[in-house]
């Protein structure tokens, strides 16, 4: 994932321009664990949203697997999000009407990579690996924060994406759960590109590459 001169400006409510990202040039590579550190308001969420094709930059070029994102249709972007990108959010974002397993299967409903049997087998394996096999048929509100975040991690992995994007994935978790999630992400990063945004210094121990975001400017540490 290559970013060239990426700028994102917001117009705030009182009419002022806020430069959330300022000339970002960076090439994210596969098989690495990236940690993006920065204070609140430094533009971390904006960056990860653009990386995840949820948001578009004001200026600059962004290439995803060699495709220039600005030139793609909405449907193509959805397809890439579904196939290539797994999201983990600070607030988990699970569908409260669906059980843990159903939440995990949600992204597979529109994905043709595998048969239904393969998908369910795969999901069960992931639930086992993350120690959630007994929680598969529980609803999100019956799960603890740590469990919910692990479910959303399984959901991010289920379509075997090449990139995992996590925006403060441990922001709402206690210390033990935080370590658990970071270890899992570390494990995942052996085969995929994992980009984790955080202002928590603990992450440095796990990351291959630590990047600093300060007032919209990205620097390698």
């Amino acid at each position, binding site marked *: 994932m290559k970013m060239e001169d990426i700028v994102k400006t917001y117009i705030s409510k009182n009419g002022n321009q806020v430069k959330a990202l300022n000339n970002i040039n960076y090439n994210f590579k596969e098989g690495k664990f990236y940690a993006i550190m920065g204070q609140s308001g430094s533009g971390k969420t904006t960056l990860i949203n653009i990386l995840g094709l949820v948001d578009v930059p004001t200026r600059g070029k962004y290439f995803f697997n060699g495709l220039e994102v600005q030139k793609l249709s909405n*449907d193509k972007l959805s397809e890439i999000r579904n196939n290539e990108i797994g999201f983990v*959010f600070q607030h988990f974002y699970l*569908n409260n009407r669906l059980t843990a397993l*159903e939440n995990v299967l949600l*992204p597979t*409903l529109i994905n043709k990579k595998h048969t239904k049997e393969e998908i369910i087998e795969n999901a069960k394996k992931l639930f086992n690996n993350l120690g959630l096999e007994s929680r598969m048929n529980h609803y999100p509100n019956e799960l603890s924060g740590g469990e919910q975040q692990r479910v959303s991690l399984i959901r991010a992995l289920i379509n075997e994406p090449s990139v995992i994007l996590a925006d403060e994935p441990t922001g709402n978790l206690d210390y033990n759960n935080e370590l658990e999630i970071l270890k899992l992400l570390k494990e995942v990063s052996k085969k995929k590109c994992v980009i984790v945004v955080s202002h928590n210094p603990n992450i440095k121990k796990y990351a291959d590459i630590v990047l600093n975001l300060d007032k919209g400017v990205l620097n390698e540490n």
Partner: protein
Amino acid sequence: MKTKELFLLGFKSLKFLSLRKKIFLVIQIVIMLLILIPFGFYSVFSNAAETIINNQYEFREISLYGTSNDYEKYKSVLNEYENNHIVYIDELATPNIRAYTSVDSRNNFILKRKIEGFVPEVTNGNELNNKYDIICPEMATDVNFEELNYNDLINLEEKIGKTINLNFLNSDDELVFSQEFNIVGTYNADFYYSYDTCYILNNTFDEILSKINSDLKEDSDTVKDLFILYVDNNENVEEITNYLENNDIMVSVPKLDDKIVNYILLLSIFIMIILVITSIIILINYFKNYYKEEYYNIALYKALGFKEKDIIKIIFIENILLIFVALIVSIVLFIFLKIIVTLYLHQFVAFRIVEIRLSIIPLFIYYLVIILLNYVFLKIDINEISSMSIKRIGEL
């Protein structure tokens, strides 16, 4: 997305209805019931209309008529007659029911019975003040009530203020004497269904009665409806009337004005249109708030890579299922209501209620209209869906 999965997602969302959706559901059930009920009643009359067209007995109602003297005889015949098709027997008459004085075109006046304390509202002229004042129907008849034809009516309204020479007959129809009366007013005979009843003062009545030396026993020689039988099915009417006629009972099967059928149909359609319009307004409101309420889930679907058309399908199916629930519930409620009404009220209004039928077609039309609207709104609001994004969940 596969249809099966779409429906599974839809069913899932039915299990977790928000208060707003529950209220919407209840409103839809009420609207559907309000559509079902008038059409249910219409079906009663349309059935009657059908039989009129086929020249059959149109209403499952048989009148037994005769004079008061026939009352006991009819009653005993009915008591002996066991026929399961007779749903209810209405006893209309007691032996002492009212009778009337009556005039015919030849001014033959027959004293039928003294009617005390009752004079219809007079449309013209004065009250009865003088001994030989009389109040007549605007339009009088001397023909049998059953064969009433407006052309045969005598216009007495024109004769207000004039005199009329009445011939008084005894019960054997022999002229006893004549007397001149002043027509001081007329009344609306249409309203009272009394095209042959005139009113005179009580004293005058008594005096004339003594002059003609008639032995008036109540209204024993007045023909009137004594019983009405309500029959469950048209096909059984003939069998019953035949039996009664063989027992010397006079019967008639009343005719239904087929205009009424059309009025009820028009009324039902009118009600349905009003309800559909009301429902459209409610639907617009529902969809406006729908996106706010579902923002979280829609934004999530998008982040997970669902295309807009997938999301539209999900919402579409979800709402179709919700309204389908309303459809089923309203039909069940209607059937329930019908059973209750039939069981507990059929003693009073049996002949109508027994026939209430479930008219699915108007409801089905309504369901299709809602589905169409659902689809149209989704198409209109596609921009709304495109603008939804996970990044804005926090802002809301």
